[in-house]
């Protein structure tokens, strides 16, 4: 690779022909405006019967089930994969009244989307489906409330989850390649599940188990059950990345750690967007994507018009089996969603089918599932609520105009600059849609959202209808609406949000263009978010981690000559109106901090006053060990492998204070 890297850098490139590009860009915008007049109306005439599903069942009250795991379920809800949940849609999302109505909703919207080249100019749908994917935040950080914490506005220490993963939300665990309960450690390596005893002087492997029919697996651990989530390798997406990859869920019993055994094996014909575990309940958000209907495209013998007509006919003759996901627990494939449990979204929502699936680790073959016949961008789950953001319909058919093609719709809100947010209350393994809100601005990813005591806070980027700056918004639930109750705008004009960290009554936001403005926002009065202070520094932080009430770590980068250098900063946040950087450690040129993309590559060990974070340099990976000493960072590094192995490197602090380093080459204790 070094030869290729040298060729990359040696390749002679002149300056950008900026004037030509600008002139041509302006010219095409003018051309586009002329075309826009003839643009066909999408899904015209669709009028939604708002609230139609409102009275179909008894309202379930939040306090009925409490927030404990599994408490909201009853035996009746386990009747099968489409367990009856007549009350699944209690707000303005109407459930389909019949399978016929659901199918015509798909067909109508499909006809608005299909072109002579298939979906969206030949690019199959589901383009940006993965932007909300499980492991990889580009904006990082959140802390939940801590019991008994009642001090003034400030940061709060956050440590890894009970299974050793650095997660967004305390109490809500996230899948990872390594999990531990303090005594046993499980990890995936190659296609195998390896089990280690970590109670001795050195970790000892006690068993390995080949994981069947699943690729790129990740793990959850609850009690003595490992839940394995991965891409179904029986029905993988096409080699060109088109088509929808299925998801496989295996449960493995560790009742006898030396003899791990696959207990259950369930396949879903939809791609995993998000997986979370709360107590013994596992919740999945799955996307089915647009069906591959065998579209044709124009050839020498087939004109554009003929191809379009053929493709429209294919959409018209599609069946619900094309659109709805299936589920197979070993006894044959069946439909995951009952038509009556699928909500038909507002007409401007993109075309997709999103399933919200819940099951207990003990009974993965009996999930409950509800669906939304629309596209979502971001899934954020707190202990009590699941929030999904809508992705607007792309206007695929705009002959001759310069289309931003298929993807960008998912990049931002609809042309009116607004993003729908659907709030699902969680009761055990069931999810109930309880409210919808509209956010004016762009929600970048799950780390931009936070929920505390049922109220939602969001960090948004600018949209076409907002001022060109970022904002913090607070929402309260009024009936079935999420109503904006407070807004603080003007955070970083022309800049993008890089990191957000939420506390009960505080948000810390990093934006970036050339310098790193870090803002502290007081949320104690949700109706009046207040800017406490800001700090500008070169470079930026893409992951923030609070060490405690006085100190915070920012992991990020500083850019020079198109090459970025990873850096870790130590901040004093004891006075939020005067955040100070106490120290910064920059790594070599061309390094990147993996934690900026994947918070799981970061561990804070309070008892050692040490931060561990993985740094990548070309193909090589290093674990940076940063010890806090007298307001400084004392840094050493340890190699952790090469290539794809670097992304798998993890560190875990055990309850007894010992620290495990898990790399492709094995599991060992780390001497600090």
């Amino acid at each position: 690779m070094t030869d290729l890297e040298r060729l990359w850098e040696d390749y002679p490139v002149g300056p950008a022909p900026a004037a030509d590009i600008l002139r041509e860009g302006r010219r095409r915008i003018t051309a586009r405006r002329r075309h826009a007049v003839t643009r066909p109306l999408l899904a015209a005439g669709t009028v939604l019967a708002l609230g139609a599903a409102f009275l179909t069942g008894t309202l379930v009250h939040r306090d009925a089930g409490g927030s404990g795991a599994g408490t909201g379920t009853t035996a009746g809800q386990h009747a099968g994969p489409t367990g009856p949940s007549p009350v699944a849609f209690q707000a303005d999302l109407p459930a389909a009244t019949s399978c016929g109505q659901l199918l015509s909703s798909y067909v109508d919207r499909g006809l608005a989307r299909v072109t002579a080249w298939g979906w969206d100019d030949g690019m199959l749908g589901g383009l940006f489906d993965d932007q909300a994917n499980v492991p990889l935040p580009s904006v990082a950080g959140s802390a939940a409330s801590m019991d008994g914490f009642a001090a003034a506005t400030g940061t709060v220490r956050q440590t890894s989850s009970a299974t050793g993963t650095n997660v967004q939300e305390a109490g809500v665990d996230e899948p990872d390649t390594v999990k531990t309960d303090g005594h046993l450690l499980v990890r995936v390596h190659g296609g195998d599940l390896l089990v280690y005893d970590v109670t001795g002087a050195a970790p000892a492997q006690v068993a390995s188990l080949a994981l069947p029919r699943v690729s790129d697996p990740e793990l959850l651990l609850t009690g003595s059950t490992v839940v394995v989530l991965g891409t179904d390798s029986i029905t993988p997406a096409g080699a060109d990345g088109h088509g929808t990859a299925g998801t496989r869920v295996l449960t493995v019993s560790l009742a006898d750690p030396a003899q791990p055994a696959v207990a259950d094996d369930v396949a879903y014909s939809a791609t995993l967007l998000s997986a979370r575990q709360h107590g013994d309940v596992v919740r999945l958000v799955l996307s089915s994507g647009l069906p591959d209907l065998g579209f044709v495209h124009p050839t020498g013998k087939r004109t554009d018009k003929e191809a379009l007509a053929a493709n429209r006919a294919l959409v018209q003759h599609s069946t619900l089996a094309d659109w709805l996901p299936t589920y197979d627990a070993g006894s044959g494939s069946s439909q995951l969603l009952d038509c009556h449990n699928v909500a038909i979204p507002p007409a401007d929502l993109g075309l997709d089918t999103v399933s919200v699936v819940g099951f207990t680790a003990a009974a993965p073959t009996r999930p409950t599932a509800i669906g939304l016949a629309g596209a979502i961008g971001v899934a954020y789950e707190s202990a009590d609520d699941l929030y999904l953001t809508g992705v607007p319909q792309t206007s695929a058919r705009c002959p001759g105009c310069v289309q931003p093609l298929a993807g960008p719709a998912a990049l931002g809100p609809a042309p009116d600059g607004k993003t729908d947010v659907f709030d699902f209350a969680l009761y055990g393994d069931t999810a109930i849609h309880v409210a919808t809100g509209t956010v004016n601005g762009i929600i970048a990813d799950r780390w931009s959202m936070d929920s505390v005591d049922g109220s939602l806070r969001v960090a948004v980027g600018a949209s076409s209808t907002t001022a060109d700056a970022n904002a913090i918004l607070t929402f309260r639930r009024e009936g079935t609406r999420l109503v904006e109750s407070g807004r603080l705008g003007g955070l970083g004009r022309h800049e993008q949000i890089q990191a957000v960290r939420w506390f009960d009554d505080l948000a810390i936001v990093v934006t970036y263009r050339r310098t790193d403005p870090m803002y502290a926002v007081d949320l104690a009065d949700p109706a009046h978010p207040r800017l406490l202070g800001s700090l500008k520094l070169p470079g930026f932080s893409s992951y923030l981690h609070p060490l405690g009430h006085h100190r915070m770590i920012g992991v990020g980068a500083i850019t020079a000559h198109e090459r970025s250098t990873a850096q870790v900063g130590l901040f004093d946040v004891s006075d939020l109106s005067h955040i100070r950087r106490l120290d910064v450690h920059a790594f070599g040129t061309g390094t990147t901090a993996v934690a900026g993309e994947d918070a799981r590559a970061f561990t804070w060990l309070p008892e050692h006053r040490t931060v561990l974070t993985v740094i990548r340099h070309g193909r090589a990976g290093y674990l940076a060990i940063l010890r806090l000493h007298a307001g400084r960072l004392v840094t050493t590094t340890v190699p952790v492998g090469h290539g794809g192995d670097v992304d798998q490197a993890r560190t875990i602090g055990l309850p007894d204070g010992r620290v495990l380093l898990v790399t492709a080459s094995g599991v060992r204790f780390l001497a600090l």
Partner: protein
Amino acid sequence: MDDDAEAAYSRYAAEQWGRLVRAAVFLGAGPHEAEDLAQTTLVRCYAGWARVTNADNRDAYVYRMLLNCLRDQRRTRWWRGRVDVPTDVLAAGERIEDTSEAVAIADAVHRALATLTKPNRDVVVLRYFVQLSEAQTAAALGISAGTVKSRLSRSLARLAADQHLLDLTGESR
């Protein structure tokens, strides 16, 4: 587009130009074609700039656009012929200072990356060379982050094992 936004766009275009041209070459374009593609990509981005400018995955969008432009170009290639000449109205001719060096490097790169399938090459170029994040690469290619990871490690292993790489650069330097 107002003046501020246009200034931001120009700055972005200037910053990205080198990476875009190199990426196009690594994705299989010849030197002139690569500059055309980079230019077309940026021109198309201008039209969608208001939606893109604050999007967190702006880079993913831009590189997706580059891949689409490349695909469009390939689609019409059979009747235009495969000769790498500046075709666009925005003639690219004199911007490549040393055409022979560019041609030699592009050639070496194409031979080196020929061992990879197109999906794997796309991942390597976006993730490894352009240095998009895993999530951005996934978004740009419309695949899952897990697939990015597995394709990347497979491809890097493949390239590392490839003996041809050793004599790659003899003629280009």
